């Protein structure tokens, strides 16, 4: 553990897991928290105050759908009063102009709005909710009418990736200054749906080319943040910019984790804001110190000149694919476990299976990707 730990930059406040959408790549855990298990408004007010005192600069109100919480307006006001820069990460499927205007007045600084595709038909199919796309479009208009900056978030995968150029046009038309085109990351629901979501290499290369061309053309007009699927990469992503280096994520139940998937790691007791202060959690807890810095690393990370760039990649992915959170992220071609990833990429050339939609009643019982039997399908 490093001698001195810098304060966190951002707090991801997952207010709830409730959401009207059922996207099959949702980053929420497969065992979704029910409303009765959520932190209270008073708890969240205390967490926000502790976060500001600890040095957190930005708070991201997220979920599930954070607008499912009636106290969201109050929490935005509280964050603003504490000097925290607040972002709303929303599906846009609940509420509209009235709520957005109130949020803007309370000090909200920015809205990140998800779309599932540029076309309403495919977007609604992926979201598992008819009419969602049109509601999102009206929501985007309300955000701009309230004078708030808008980022569109498009999670991309093999079933919408070919529409990247149209997604960029949609972002321009809706008045966004920024668009995030982010490939699915394979954890939780997305891991269960991996064979339905992982794009082929050819699809990926075409999309990357479209993004690069648009970046040139739209410099200073639209910022395009692009996240490639790490399965197709050579070196791992710098997951969360390193464990416990910049981010704290609070789950609806109050459990604090260094990233939204970390709760799946066995043998780590993640602390709760119900019983611990945020400062204790950040500086003292075993959970946040477990993979901090580089001391925990084994080879090939330990002697790698990228160890403080990649930070070993993702701990959750190491556990998920190699069975041990302390190993090198298997997406790295230097990892001894890399063949697991290569096999999944190979599988992507086959036919995609049906989605397992994200619903309370739909939790996959196995942690194996559901697509495997599908390799036997003709095609």
């Amino acid at each position, binding site marked *: 553990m490093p001698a001195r730990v810098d304060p966190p930059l951002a707090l991801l406040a997952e207010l709830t897991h409730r959401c009207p959408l059922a996207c099959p790549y949702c980053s929420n855990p497969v065992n979704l928290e029910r409303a009765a298990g959520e932190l209270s408004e008073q708890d969240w007010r205390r967490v926000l105050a502790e976060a500001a005192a600890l040095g957190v600069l930005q708070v991201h109100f997220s979920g599930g759908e954070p607008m499912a919480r009636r106290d969201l307006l109050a929490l935005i006001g509280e964050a603003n009063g504490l000097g925290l820069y607040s972002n709303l990460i929303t599906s846009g499927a609940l509420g509209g102009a009235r709520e957005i205007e109130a949020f803007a007045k309370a000090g909200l*600084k920015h809205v990140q709005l998800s779309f599932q595709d540029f076309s309403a038909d495919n977007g609604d199919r992926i979201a598992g909710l008819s009419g969602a796309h049109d509601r999102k479009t009206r929501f985007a208009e309300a955000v701009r009418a309230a004078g708030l*900056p808008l980022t569109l978030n498009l999670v991309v995968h093999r079933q919408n990736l070919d529409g990247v150029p149209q997604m960029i046009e949609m972002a321009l*038309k809706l008045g966004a200054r920024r668009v995030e085109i982010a490939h699915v990351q394979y954890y939780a629901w997305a891991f269960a749906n991996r064979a339905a979501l992982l794009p082929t290499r050819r699809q990926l290369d075409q999309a990357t080319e479209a993004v690069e061309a648009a970046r040139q053309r739209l410099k200073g*007009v639209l910022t395009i943040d692009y996240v490639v699927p790490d399965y197709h990469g050579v070196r791992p992503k710098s997951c969360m910019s390193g464990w416990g280096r910049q981010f704290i994520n609070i789950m609806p139940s109050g459990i604090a984790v260094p990233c939204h998937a970390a709760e799946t790691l066995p043998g780590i007791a993640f602390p709760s804001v119900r019983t611990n202060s945020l400062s204790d959690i950040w500086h003292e807890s075993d959970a946040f110190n477990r993979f901090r810095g580089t001391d925990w690393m084994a080879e090939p990370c330990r002697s790698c000149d990228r160890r403080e760039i990649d930070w070993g990649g993702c701990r959750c992915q190491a556990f998920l694919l190699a069975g041990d959170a302390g190993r090198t992220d298997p997406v790295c071609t230097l990892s001894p476990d890399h063949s697991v990833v290569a096999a999944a990429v190979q599988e992507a050339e086959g036919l995609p299976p049906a989605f397992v939609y994200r619903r309370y009643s739909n939790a996959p019982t196995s942690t194996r990707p559901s697509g495997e039997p599908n390799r036997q399908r003709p095609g």
Partner: protein
Amino acid sequence: MMDRLVVSAESVLNFAPHIVFRFDEVRKRWIILAPERLMLPDEQAVEILQLVDGKTGVSGIVDSLAARYSQAPRDLIAKDVTAMLQDLADKGCLAGAGPG
């Protein structure tokens, strides 16, 4: 769709709405907060940004800095200032405040 803001000597700039440029007491340094983004301007950038007020043109900012650093050629200061402001404008942090 909006046009790109091109920074010139005549530009009068201000911070875009929802951009926060402030001193952070925890880290003891100036920061720029933008949507889901934190920027850490270096000392030189901080000096320039403290002169961005929605009234002074870029050439006026350069004049102030040239007076402060009389050993540096004004042309060089103008080039650095314009490049730095253009970079921030391209990141959506600055907006035009007047004609030009």
